[in-house]
């Protein structure tokens, strides 16, 4: 039986970890995801999980432990955010290069300097080319559902790629919501067993993992690594559908909200999409034909599907909760603008950076964006490609 609980994002992930009970959990506490690590430690102390819990001296070591444990053949996870993810940097590439399906829960938080503990996507966006699959969650329920699916996706034999699941710092990690938890046994059954292809603990076979490559092999190994994440879209789709059949909440690459007859669209990920839905409702009641597209999977980027969903719009605003200094737009924007390049008839696109360091974005801000989109649609001109929302100018 499902249970309905009131949990914040961190408690929700901890509950999922208890249900999944990975072989090894290696994590170092960091605000705002500390509660995940603390709760897992208490689960372990209380005998509610049997997996090893390792708390090393840093996030770099936490990811190193994950890599060792996953190479041994274990189902492995970690939890971190912001500076912690940044400290894991070189090991993130190694996890992906070794094709180890480690799952990381990331509470999205801004990066220093200046130091800030609140939510934005700078941390995971910085890790977007590490080779990890990236899934973003709007609320606690999605964080729970995505986290469970992450194991199935990453551990699929065609994929074998690490997965990070993000949700917004404080806005979701520390806000209590009603969450439906599935039965422990049902979650375990959905995930199934992990069958690693080359577990080091299998001493019946002779092989070595991660030796040096020179100019004659590195390129081939990198190409082979890319294949894992390129194989993932059908798996992500299948797992999302099966999750829906099993638990009643299906998932795709993105969510479309009131997009059917829309002429204008706002693209925004994670918690701000919830606020945007309210704005869309209000604008719809005023007769505006506007919709929301909320990307869920950022890596692999579902460029064809997103382009198909947006191609008929007159104007689209892409909202990024991170910046890419020196680039002509922030990460989500440049991906989407590039995805639409092959269409002869395509919408006008504008980019807005919002919410850095946890700065609020409200319904009125989305309504401002909608007003600007109307003007762009009418004039056919984008005066400023990149703007900032709720920033003192």
């Amino acid at each position, binding site marked *: 039986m499902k249970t309905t609980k009131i949990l914040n994002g961190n408690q929700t992930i901890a509950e999922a970890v208890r249900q999944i009970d990975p072989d090894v959990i290696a994590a170092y506490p960091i605000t705002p995801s500390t509660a995940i690590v603390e709760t897992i430690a208490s689960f372990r102390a209380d005998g509610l999980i049997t997996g090893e819990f390792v708390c090393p001296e840093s996030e770099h070591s936490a990811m190193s432990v994950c890599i060792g444990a996953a190479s041994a053949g274990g189902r492995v996870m970690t939890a971190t955010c912001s500076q912690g993810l940044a400290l894991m940097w070189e090991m993130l590439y190694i996890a992906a*290069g*070794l*094709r*180890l399906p480690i799952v990381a829960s990331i509470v999205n938080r801004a990066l220093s300097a200046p130091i800030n503990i609140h939510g934005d996507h700078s941390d995971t966006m910085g890790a977007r080319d590490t080779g990890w699959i990236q899934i973003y969650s709007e609320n606690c329920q999605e964080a729970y559902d995505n986290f469970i699916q992450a194991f199935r996706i990453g551990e699929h034999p065609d994929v*074998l790629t690490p997965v990070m699941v993000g949700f917004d710092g404080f806005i979701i990690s520390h806000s209590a919501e009603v969450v439906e938890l599935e039965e422990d046994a049902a979650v375990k059954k959905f995930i199934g067993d992990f069958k690693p*292809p*080359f577990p080091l603990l299998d001493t019946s*076979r*002779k*092989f*070595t*993992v*991660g*030796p040096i*490559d020179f100019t*004659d*092999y590195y*390129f*081939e*190994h990198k*190409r*082979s*690594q890319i*294949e*894992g994440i390129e194989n993932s879209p059908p798996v992500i789709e299948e797992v999302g559908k099966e999750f829906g059949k099993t638990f009643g909440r299906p998932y795709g690459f993105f969510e479309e909200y009131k997009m059917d007859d829309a002429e204008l669209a706002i693209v925004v990920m994670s918690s701000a999409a919830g606020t945007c839905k309210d704005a869309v409702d209000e604008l719809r009641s005023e007769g505006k034909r506007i919709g929301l597209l909320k990307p869920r999977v950022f890596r692999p980027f579902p460029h064809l599907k997103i382009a198909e969903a947006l191609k008929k719009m007159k104007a689209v605003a892409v909202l990024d909760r991170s910046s890419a200094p020196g680039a002509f737009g922030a990460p989500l924007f440049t991906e989407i603008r590039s995805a639409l390049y092959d269409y002869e008839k395509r919408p006008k696109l504008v980019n807005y950076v919002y919410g850095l360091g946890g700065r609020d974005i409200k319904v009125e801000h989305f309504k401002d964006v909608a007003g600007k989109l109307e003007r762009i649609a009418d004039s056919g001109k984008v005066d400023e490609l990149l703007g900032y929302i709720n920033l003192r100018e």
Partner: protein
Amino acid sequence: MKKETWKELPIGTVNTQAGNSVVNLTGTWRSGRRPEFIEKNCIQCFFCWVYCPHFAIMVKDGKVTGINYDYCTGCGLCAEECPTKEKAIVMVAEEIKLAAGRKQ
């Protein structure tokens, strides 16, 4: 030796050819200096054998007999650790042929 395409490689940098140093002669990286064994000074203490990071000290019938230049990288640890007054291993300028077309 035919090199695999990316599709033929095992997943995740795994190398299933155990002991492939039989064909990969890591001594070909050596440049500049190489150790030379002077048997008459050797007291068979085996320090060189213990310290050599590449198992390049050759041993036969319980005795150090010389250096395997196919695997010696020329690091100099053996010469440094050799304890005899008149050294039984000294570093000399590289002279032997390393790989095809390469000679110093």
